């Protein structure tokens, strides 16, 4: 018997994080995706314990500032796309303001760390969301285009094809057949 599941990864992540933090009896505050603030400083042992607990779930603590920044940028992008806000050209201003650095600096930092530009990362994330919407949630291309702020289905298909090399329809077909194979 097969069960088809849909999941909100951010929710999952948050509950796991909360569960582990609660185990250590630390007072904390979650400041959005990927950022936890502790009210008080934590001992090295508790840090180690936390690191170990989180690593079981594939969650690692980002140590250096640059990687933290990059992660923040990614988080902002993911949040924006998931909340259906239109990610437009104002996005560069949005990120720069949010993180308190110039866009040029953030851009260069991002590229060096991730091998790709912020713009490209936005497109990749968006296309990933398209994939999720058409396979897991079975929305039509029109609905997806609307939800993610594409000006038309053609625009969506064009970007999809450019990014993945496949049309959305073909992509859907392949995923369906994969599921059939089990």
């Amino acid at each position: 018997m097969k069960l088809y599941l849909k999941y909100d990864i951010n929710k999952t992540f948050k509950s796991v994080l909360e569960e582990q933090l609660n185990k250590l009896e630390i007072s904390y505050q979650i400041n959005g995706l990927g950022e936890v603030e502790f009210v008080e400083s934590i001992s090295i042992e508790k840090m180690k314990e936390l690191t170990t607990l989180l690593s079981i779930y594939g969650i690692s603590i980002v140590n250096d500032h640059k990687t933290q920044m990059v992660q923040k940028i990614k988080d902002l992008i993911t949040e924006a796309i998931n909340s259906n806000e239109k990610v437009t050209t104002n996005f560069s201003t949005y990120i720069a303001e949010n993180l308190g650095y110039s866009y040029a600096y953030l851009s260069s930092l991002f590229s060096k760390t991730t091998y790709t530009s912020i713009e490209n990362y936005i497109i990749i994330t968006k296309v990933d969301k398209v994939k999720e919407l058409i396979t897991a949630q079975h929305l039509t291309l029109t609905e997806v285009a609307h939800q993610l702020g594409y000006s038309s289905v053609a625009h969506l298909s064009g970007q999809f094809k450019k990014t993945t090399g496949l049309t959305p329809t073909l992509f859907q077909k392949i995923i369906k057949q994969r599921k059939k194979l089990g």
Partner: protein
Amino acid sequence: MVRDTLHIVLVDDDEDDRDFFREAIEEIDMDTTLSMFVNGQEFLDHITIPNQKLPQIVFLDLNMPIKNGLECLKEIKENNLLEKLSVAIYSTSSSEEDIERTFVLGANVYINKPNSFKKLKKAVEEVLKVNWQYHTSNLNKENFLLRV
């Protein structure tokens, strides 16, 4: 998160093709290591040794003697330890049906072997960069499909 080194494997029985690939990787400006195998059986034997450091991505030639690319792909998909492994099928041109089939069988990437070194570099670089995103972000790896 320090930027990890990307471990790449190539499985191809043709010596010239292995040379081209290696030279392309050397010229791509990314932190990589490359291991090469001459046939699928060798690769699978190597990878299933316990505590072996696993690569993030393997490029598989389709047309190999003894065990061809598709057979390897099937075995990789059946192996639980190799869940995180991205598979790129790397082949001389095939029909649309064949390409579709490799995706359905679980390949993440399909590359048509190009006929110039420049194109080869560009294609491999694109694959590695996109693969990197899937490897380091929480994008859904199951939906990682790329055709170059």
